[in-house]
C-alpha cells in the first residue's frame, strides 16, 4: 500500500502524459514508491503496476533495468560515489576509499546499524565537480574531499 500523498504525486505524474499512456508514469511512480518505502519490494512494484493498470512484470522490468531503483533494502542513507574515468582522475576513487574506510564497508554493503549503504556509481553528469557523491538519489554533493565527507556523514542522523 502507498500513502494518499504518494498516490497524489503519482496522479500528477500520470497527468503529464496522454490519457491512454498511463504506463509512461511508471518510472516516476516507482521512484515515488521507493522514496516512501525505502526500497522496492515485489509487493510495492505490484501495487504500482496495479495502480497504473499495467502487468506487474512490465513494472518489474523497469524497476530492474534502471540502476537507481533498489530492489533490496538499503540503509537510511544510500551514498553513491562516481568512480568513472573523469572523476577517477580527480579524487573519485580516493573519495570512495575514504568512505569505505570510514564506514567500514565495501560497495553494495550496508553498515551494521542500517544507517549507510555505499554504492559505486556511473557517470552522474557532474564530472567537473569531482569527487561527486549522490545521497538517496536526490542530493548531489560536489567537490567532496575528506573534510566535506566528514561533515556530510555527521549530518546524517
Amino acid at each position, binding site marked *: 500500500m502507498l500513502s494518499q500523498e504518494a498516490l497524489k504525486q503519482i496522479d500528477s505524474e500520470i497527468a503529464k502524459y496522454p490519457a491512454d*499512456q498511463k504506463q509512461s508514469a511508471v518510472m516516476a511512480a516507482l521512484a515515488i514508491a521507493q522514496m516512501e518505502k525505502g526500497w522496492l519490494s515485489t509487493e510495492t512494484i505490484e501495487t504500482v503496476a496495479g495502480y*497504473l493498470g499495467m502487468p506487474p512484470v512490465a513494472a518489474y522490468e523497469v524497476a530492474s533495468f*534502471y*540502476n537507481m531503483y533498489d530492489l533490496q533494502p538499503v540503509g537510511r542513507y544510500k551514498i553513491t560515489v562516481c568512480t*568513472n574515468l*573523469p572523476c577517477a582522475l580527480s579524487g573519485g576513487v580516493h573519495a570512495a576509499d575514504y568512505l569505505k574506510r570510514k564506514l567500514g564497508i565495501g560497495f553494495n554493503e550496508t553498515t551494521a546499524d542500517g544507517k549507510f549503504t555505499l554504492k559505486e556509481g556511473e557517470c552522474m*553528469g*557532474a564530472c567537473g565537480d569531482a569527487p561527486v557523491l549522490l545521497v538517496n538519489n536526490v*542530493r548531489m554533493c560536489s*567537490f567532496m574531499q575528506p573534510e566535506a565527507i566528514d561533515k556530510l556523514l555527521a549530518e546524517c542522523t
Partner: protein
Amino acid sequence: MGALGFILSPEEGERGWRLADYVRRGGYAALKKIIAEKIPADHIVGELKKSSLRGRGGAGFPTGLKWSFMPRQFPGDKYVVCNSDEGEPGTFKDRDILRWNPHMVIEGMIIAGYAMGCQRGYNYIHGEIWDIYKRFEEALDEARAANLLGPNILGSDFSFELQAHHGYGAYICGEETALLESIEGKKGQPRFKPPFPASFGLYGKPTTINNTETFASVPWIITNGGDKFLELGKPNNGGTKLFSVSGHVNRPGNFEVPMGTPFAELLEMAGGVRAGRKLKAVIPGGSSAPVLPADIMMDCTLDYDSIAKAGSMLGSGAVIVMDETTCMVKALERLSYFYFEESCGQCTPCREGTGWLYRVVHRIENGLGRREDLDLLNSVTDNIMGRTICALGDAASLPVRSFIKHFKAEFEYHIERKQCLVPVDVQRAGSGFFVAEAKATC
C-alpha cells in the same frame, strides 16, 4: 565561463534562472516575434539551415535538416523531445544550461513545436540531477503562468504543452530511441532504425529529438539570424559551443567558446595541466570518442571537422584531460567497465563483447595479460562494430582501438613486465584529491 557565449554567460555576473531574469536578458523575444509576425515555419527551418547548427548531443547532425524531416502536415499528435539525459562520461554541460538558463531551452522547444507543427513536448532529464529536474518543473510553471506555454500561446492559435520526464539511471537512454521507449514506461532498449523517429517516434507518432544545448541555441538564431550564428563559428560549424573540461586541469568546468577555437586556448582557460605536469592524452568528445595523444590534440581546433581529421570526434564537447601520471591501461579499464555495465543486453555482440573487452583489459592491467591479447581486443571490436542496433557497441569499441593504437607500447609493457609503466604511487598522487578553487557544495 568564457564571456564569448550566449548560453551560459548572457550577461556579466547575471546568473538568475527565473523567468523575469531571462526576460530581462531578452528572453522569449524570439518566440514573441514569431507569434506577432506570424513567421512561417519554413522560414524558421531555413534560418536553422543557414546557421549550420549541428546537433550538440554528440552526433553533430544538422538541426535544420532534421527539423525539415518532420511531416508538419501530418494530422494528429507530433512530439518534440529534448534529450537532457546527459550520462556520457566527461559531459556535464546540459546540467549547467538547465541550472542557469532553463527558459532558453523551454523557448527553443516551443519554437521547435511551432516550426514542426507539434503540440506536445517532453524534456528527458538525467536521473542523478534531481534538483535540476525540480528547477525545470518550476520554470515550466512560470512559463505556463505567463501564457508562454499551454493553450493559445500569447493569444495566438498555437498551443504547446511541455513536461519534464525524470530518468532513473541508464546511460543507454541517451540514445534517442531508447529514450523514447523510456518515456513510454519501458526498459530503455533502442529501437531498430528505420523507421526513424520523424515518422515513428514517441507513441508511434512523428517525433524530433534534439539535445538540450541544441534547443538552447535556437532562440538566439531566430533573434539574430542564421548568418550571424554561423559567423560566430566557422563554415559548416556554426555558433559557439560548450566544452566540459574534466580530469587533470586546474580549473575544470564548462567553457563556451566559438567553434574552431584552438584546443590550446581551451586548455589555458581551464587553467592548464595540474602542477605543471605534462599533457599525455585527451579524449576530446566524451568517453566514446577515440583518445588522442597530446601532440596531435595540441594541433587541433575545436570543431567537428578538425577533430574528425585528427581521427576522433567532437562528440558532446566533453574534453577529458590526462597528464603524464595517467596509466592508459587503467584508464581504458575503467571505461570498458562502464560500457560493460551499461550495455542494455539487447544485441549479443554488445552484451557479450563489452564483457570480453572489460575482462581482457582488466587482466592486462592486473599483470595477467597475454601476448595475443591486443589482437584479441581488436578482433572483439571488429565483431561488435556495425553489428548492433545502436551505437553503444561502437562507443565501447572506439576507446579500446584508439588506446591500443596510440599507446601500444604501454599495453605491451604491462603484458611483458606485468606492471604499469607509470609507477602506481605516481598514478595515485596524480589523480588524488585536488584542491580546486571551487568549494564543496552539498
